[in-house]
């Protein structure tokens, strides 16, 4: 019996597929090459987790510490802030405008319960780092394994 590889020999859409492939290749060269930051949910965040704490990093370039507001409700962390436009915005003659401005809110559901009173937030060169120590109940607890006594050997 003759064996055919359907995809190769009998693809009625082979021509279309070729066009599609070429188009996506073009798309990649136009839009894929330069990795652009932003564009997604703003601000971008990183969430790290260790047995001791949860660490949230947040990219907020151009936002003053006074314009940032971090709050926590249970296991939900909310980052609010305002990115201020340049002063006298209306008078400026913009040639290019990519950065944008305005209020933003980002909500993060934490992977564990944290101690709300010991949370620290730090802003350094546009990167905000929030350290959230885990609540005692959420920390891993080592359970001691007691060796059992020598078992009686039955005859």
């Amino acid at each position: 019996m003759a064996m055919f590889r359907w995809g190769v020999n009998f693809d009625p859409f082979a021509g279309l597929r070729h066009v599609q492939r070429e188009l996506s290749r073009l798309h990649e060269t136009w839009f894929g090459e330069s990795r652009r930051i932003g564009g997604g949910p703003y601000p971008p965040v990183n969430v790290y987790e260790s047995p001791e704490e949860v660490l949230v990093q947040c990219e907020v370039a151009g936002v003053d510490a006074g314009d940032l507001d971090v709050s926590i409700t249970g296991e939900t962390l909310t980052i609010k802030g305002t990115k201020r436009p340049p002063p006298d915005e209306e008078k400026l003659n913009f040639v290019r405008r990519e950065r944008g401005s305005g209020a933003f809110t980002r909500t993060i559901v934490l992977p564990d319960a944290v101690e709300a009173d010991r949370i620290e937030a730090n802003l350094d060169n546009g990167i905000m780092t929030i350290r959230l120590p885990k609540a005692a109940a959420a920390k891993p607890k080592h359970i001691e394994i007691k060796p059992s006594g020598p078992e009686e050997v039955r005859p």
Partner: protein
Amino acid sequence: MTKDDAVKVEASRSGQELGENAFNPLVDVYETEKEVVLVAEVPGARREDVLLRVDKGVLTVEASTSYETPGENYARTYLGFEPGQYFRAFALSDEIDREKIGASVANGVLTVRLPKAAAARSRRIEIKTAD
């Protein structure tokens, strides 16, 4: 502009080419009567991490991030951004006075001021009427 956050502008012929993996920083460019101002977002970059170069009418902005990422004992639960390098180049108009370009970095934002040469500033031309 305070002296502390001033970035040096280098005029050089050669420079190392950053890989294609560099981030393209978001920029605002606006023009006033006296200058063109370029505002680029370089979160995580300190003043020392930013390098500006003017070469043959091209202004290149290079920066690298210097914030700490947690070590190996932290699990990456969610990643939305990563440390890396920023790179972007701009063609300079001839009317920019290259010697007087100034730049500063504050709060992850780089501001480059490109003053227009005196000859290029707009002047009001008086129209004389012949009586």
